[in-house]
């Protein structure tokens, strides 16, 4: 279970939010909403452990994520604004290295299978610099089809994606929730996913 207790985040001198509380149980999705600049990305980065909050706690299974370190990061998959896709590497190499970096080993067939499902089947051996923005996004989202981690933190996952991939992604997320996973995501679009969908609105 993920718990946020009395969280306060500032950026420079600007207070983004304070006194934020919520909990996320297994099988639940939290859709974080809010205007541009209301602190959605900061909240997500804080929950990941990339940024430190001004005050408050982020607890995973009842224990602070700062104390757990590696064992928390093992349970976490974060997809941020940046795709982490290398122009010089091919689509397949990019996915292979990204999954190995998160400590997982997958066979060549599993990797190719994930890329086919996300609609990059014909571009497996193409260097990533030949891809469009939406296709790069797909390379980075392909990790979700393979990862065994419990908590997914997705910052604007739908950006630049076409309708068919959004549908695929929503299926993948719904399946993850069914298997007891947790998802924390931000998007300005409507989330049309089966399962327990909670909402949180940050006001600037």
């Amino acid at each position, binding site marked *: 279970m993920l718990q946020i207790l009395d969280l306060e985040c500032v950026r420079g001198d600007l207070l983004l939010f304070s006194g934020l509380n919520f909990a996320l149980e297994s099988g639940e999705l939290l859709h974080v909403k809010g205007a541009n600049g209301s602190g959605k990305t900061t909240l997500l980065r804080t929950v*990941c*452990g*990339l*940024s*430190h909050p001004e005050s408050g706690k982020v607890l995973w299974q009842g224990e602070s994520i700062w104390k757990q370190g*590696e*064992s928390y*990061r*093992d349970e*976490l998959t*974060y997809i*941020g*604004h*940046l*795709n*982490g*896709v*290398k*122009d*010089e*590497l091919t689509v397949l*190499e990019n996915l292979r*290295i*990204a999954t*190995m*970096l*998160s*400590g997982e080993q997958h066979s060549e067939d599993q990797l190719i299978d994930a890329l086919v499902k996300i609609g990059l089947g014909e571009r497996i051996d193409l260097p990533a610099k030949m891809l469009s923005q939406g296709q790069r996004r797909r390379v980075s989202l392909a990790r979700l089809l393979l990862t065994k981690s419990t908590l997914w933190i997705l910052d604007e996952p739908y950006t630049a994606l076409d309708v068919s991939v959004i549908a695929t992604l929503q299926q993948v997320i719904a399946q993850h929730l069914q298997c007891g996973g947790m998802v924390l995501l931000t998007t300005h679009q409507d989330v049309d996913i089966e399962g327990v969908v909670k909402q949180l609105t940050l006001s600037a």
Partner: protein
Amino acid sequence: MFSVINLMVRRDILLAMRRPQDVMTSLFFFIIVVSLFPLGVSPEMEILRTIGPGVIWVAALLATMLSLGRLFSADHQDGTLEQMILSPQPLALMVLSKCVAHWLLTGIPLVILTPLLGLLLGLAGDEIQTLTLTLLLGTPVLILIGSIGAALTLGVRGGGVLLSLLILPLFVPVLIFGTGAVSSMNAGMGVEAHFSLLGAFLVLSLLLTPWASAAALKISME
């Protein structure tokens, strides 16, 4: 533990193979700086022989400095660095692997070129040998120490100049013992002390700098 080192080293070498110009620029910089001295100072062999080891060391130091800015910047820009920090593998180990790959790509070529540039400056055979060995021990120290500065100046505007100001003073001990070995050999005093000290620098920086750089990376990602 070794799988993550293996993965990162191979990844960085693969990336450099696909973009060889990055590696070549610092290598050509090294060659050009050294070959400016016979033109600028004096073509006389006696003078060149005296200043030769120092010139080659300073040029190697500057070439390393020049390449350090690239150590983390590409990973920072495309978001790979976030994924590295969030990876369950220890970040210090990944930093160490990146430094190893960086040394194989930019340090080793400098060491290989040193005998040739030594000949250009009229150094004797045993001087060249000593000089090459000091660079073999010294260049990884430069990269490891420099990785802290590269991590701290990540994403800072004008970071390159700031990096030089931060790191060049820390390079001084390595430079002193690196060039000192050759003059000590010429004075007949033996080189063991200098090599031991360079070796000690290397061991210390291997043990300590990856942790410091990892901490610096986390700070610059906030």
